């Protein structure tokens, strides 16, 4: 299998908190836009072609 992306458990936790933490019962919740998602990845140091969404 082609090598993907490897990162720390701490980064995975930060990604989980940011991406999956918000309450989806809230009618205001919505999926992130591509731009928002890429910005989040960048904030966590998840960069490079693997993390591109376009």
């Amino acid at each position, binding site marked *: 299998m082609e090598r993907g992306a490897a990162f720390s458990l701490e980064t995975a*936790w930060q990604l989980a908190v940011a991406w999956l933490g918000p309450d989806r*019962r809230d009618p205001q919740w919505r999926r992130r836009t591509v731009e928002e998602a890429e910005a989040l990845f960048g904030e966590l140091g998840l960069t490079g072609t693997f993390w591109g969404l376009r």
Partner: protein
Amino acid sequence: MTPPLDLTIRRHVYETVLTTGLPPLARETAASRTLNLPELEVRASFERLAAGRVLVLQEESREILMAPPFSAVPTPFPVEAAGLRYWGNCVWDALGILAMLKRDGTIAASCGCCGEAMPLRVEGGDLQPAEGIVHFAIPARRWWEDIVFT
């Protein structure tokens, strides 16, 4: 814009999985006291939510397979928290379950290549130190090509 019914159904699905550990069936959702809807309307809402990548449905039954980060079926990523067991679709989802619950809990994870146990614990809002790394095999832009495989 998401139709009001779909917001209601989404809320019900997540309220159910958060408080019981599993998402509801369509007929359970339809028959719930707070909703009392025809099952066909609930199923149509499930389909719209799936088209919007909010839910993932089982291919044959069209019942909920995933209400991310929760799985409707057992997976290798069980999460124990608040006296309940939840199933994460992957290690990221398992962490996401504890993040969404905002509770302490444990994940009985295991290494994807060798099966070695890799228990994880969240306490006081922090992931406790543990050995190991996370590996994502599928590039982000391809996650939804086959979300079940991803």
